[in-house]
């Protein structure tokens, strides 16, 4: 009796495993795609917006924390205020500085501004992280934050690009956004300006720019898909 049970139970176990595995594989990780291809799990625009907004909020939070840490250790920079207006390398990019200005701006322009900002900060943040990592004054915690920040800029840019694609697909913005095709063209020619900036100034500028990105995304969302959480 036991002898006949064993092979039966083995076969049964194998069958069950096959069943589960096939189910897992079939459900699996369906790739998220903005266009409704077959086999993709398409996200709604509101959902996409929520994701990028959360992402940008986290990015700004990290930059805020790093800036506070810097202020504790590098107060002298604050003493030199004078009337020296800090020149961020992104100051050439025209960004609306008020609510009305931002609301008056076209969606496409706003999207472009966001993308420009994100593109402009990819390299400087990488170098910022490098300089912090090699600096003796900073602990590993700060260096990790800087690395995370630079990664987030990269991912946020991809996310915003997806949002723009979806909007183009839905006809919300026009397709004549050549900047989306080659973001590098957005960068000003003199893009090496940031190398002259000190670390603290870089951080200061990035803190401001990440706040801008977050705000612009929120404005876009509440203008395009206002039904959820505005």
């Amino acid at each position, binding site marked *: 009796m036991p002898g006949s049970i064993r092979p039966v139970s083995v076969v049964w176990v194998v069958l069950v495993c096959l069943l589960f595995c096939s189910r897992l594989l079939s459900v699996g990780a369906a790739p998220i795609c903005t266009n409704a291809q077959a086999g993709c799990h398409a996200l709604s625009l509101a959902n996409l917006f929520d994701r990028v907004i959360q992402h940008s909020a986290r990015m700004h939070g990290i930059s805020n924390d790093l800036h506070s840490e810097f202020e504790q250790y590098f107060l002298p920079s604050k003493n030199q205020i004078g009337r020296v207006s*800090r020149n961020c390398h992104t100051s050439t990019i025209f960004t609306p500085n008020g609510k009305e200005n931002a609301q008056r701006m076209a969606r496409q322009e706003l999207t472009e501004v966001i993308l420009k900002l994100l593109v402009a900060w990819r390299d400087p943040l990488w170098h910022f992280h490098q300089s912090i990592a090699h600096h003796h004054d900073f602990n590993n915690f700060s260096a990790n934050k800087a690395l995370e920040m630079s990664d987030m800029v990269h991912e946020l840019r991809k996310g915003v690009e997806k949002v723009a694609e979806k909007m183009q697909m839905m006809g919300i913005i026009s397709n004549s956004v050549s900047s989306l095709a080659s973001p590098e063209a957005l960068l000003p020619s003199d893009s090496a300006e940031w190398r002259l900036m000190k670390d603290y100034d870089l951080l200061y500028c990035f803190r401001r720019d990440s706040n801008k990105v977050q705000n612009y995304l929120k404005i876009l969302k509440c203008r395009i898909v206002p039904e959820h959480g*505005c």
Partner: protein
Amino acid sequence: MSLPFLRTHCGTVGARMWRDLGLAVLVLLSAAVESNSTSPPGKPVLLSCRSPEKETFTCWWEPGSDGGLPTTYRLYYERERLEGVHECPDYWSAGSNSCFFNKTHTLIWVDYYLTVVASNALGNATSDIFKMDVMEIMKPNVPENVTLLVVETEDSPYLHIRWEHPRNTDTESGWVTIKYELRIKQEKNNKWKEYMSGTQSHFSLYSIAPGGVYTVQVRCKLDHGSWSEWTNSTNVKVPNYVQNERSFWILVATLSAIPFMAAMCILIVKRENVKQCVLPPVPGPKIRGVDFHLLMSGQSEDSTNALIINQNFPLIVGWKDQMEEYLIVTENDIGPPSDASHCQKRKKSLIIPAGFCSDWEIQCKSTHIQNDCAGGTKNETGNFPKNNKSLSGESLSYMEPSKLQKQQCLGQNFVNTEATDPSPLNYDNAVKPFTNSGYVDIRKHVENTQEVNVKQVDYSRVEDVNGDNVFILNNKNLAFNSSGYMDFQRQEEKLSEDYSRVKEVGSNNVVVLQIQDMSADTKNPHATGAHKMGVCTELINSEYIDTIPAPPLM
């Protein structure tokens, strides 16, 4: 002697003079100062700036001393990406010593450099530069219209708290994201409990205590700015819901009390039974051979009798039906029982009826008397003691005391000769051990007899006891006196079976039976006759030798 005195006197006079001079100088100076009250103003200090909705902001400063002259304060600012120095556009909307920047003058994400200049007729005083970015100075107004509502559901009530966004904040365009926080306190303890509400302008608090008073405060913040002030406290009292529950529990308690009371009453009424059940009576100690009741009755002779009687002579009162009895028949190497005269020695033979166990253990054993007290001779006959396999005296204790008292007889079936030896123990001396003993199973034929005491039995007097032999001499019926002996009825009707008397016991385990007229004397009772002792034994048993149709054993 007077010289030092004069010197000190002079010293004090000089000190006083100098003191007066100093005082005079001071007075002159103060007068001069007072007359000269004008001075340049003191340096003002910029305290803080605040933007409640990320569209406008206000800055406050604290003026220094004004130098006694009317002093004006001016705020100048420089801004990133703006050329020139500009003055505060609005000094009055936000109160004194403040500067209000409206929407047109407010830019986010740009640095402002502010200074306040105090000036009067004599001069100016400039404060330190105050750098700020509107992004950093956000602090909203308090939330408004905090309302508390106790929502009553079937299971449990909960507290629903609502409020509105602070004044002037635009939450619809997505320009600002407001996050709320509230804290709740119960009236009893002073500890606040804080909850984050996120971006929702309502909150539900579950598991509130009925009858409690709750106090709620709410505050909010914009994006990553500072928290606002707490709102004023709002109170609410949760009504008591205990009545519904209480009536329910009262009903439950009443219903459960009724069977409880009933059970208690029953227990009290039947407390004897309960006591017997719970605490069974413990059997008292008994002394072997002593009848406690007799002792208790108090009469001395009775007690003596009790002690003596019960030692050795348990009473057998009656027959037991279908009781197996053994007639101890031994080899008679002495001679036929008729020659009993030769038999000097006398041995008590214990022909113990079934169901009877005597105390004569030693003797019994020594005489190879085996008493098979077979059959539970309980109280069918009512008088036989309980059986024991061994000849122990416990049977005595099972004797009913009434029977004992009635008959006062030894229940032991032992054979006495005419010798009136009172003491049963003396029999030992005269007893010859049985040489060889066998048993004859004597079946009673008293099935029809229900009465124990009234049996028709014939007794034969034992002529002699020789050693282990019992000699039944004759079959004449004994005349029984009516001194308490049992009547023996003849039971002729039972004599359908053939019963023979033992005529003699021959050697080699031979029993000589005497065939005789069954009409009478068929029974060969072997019972003790009357004793001449003070105690008498009454044996009610009669043994019968069952004669098989075959010729009797010869």
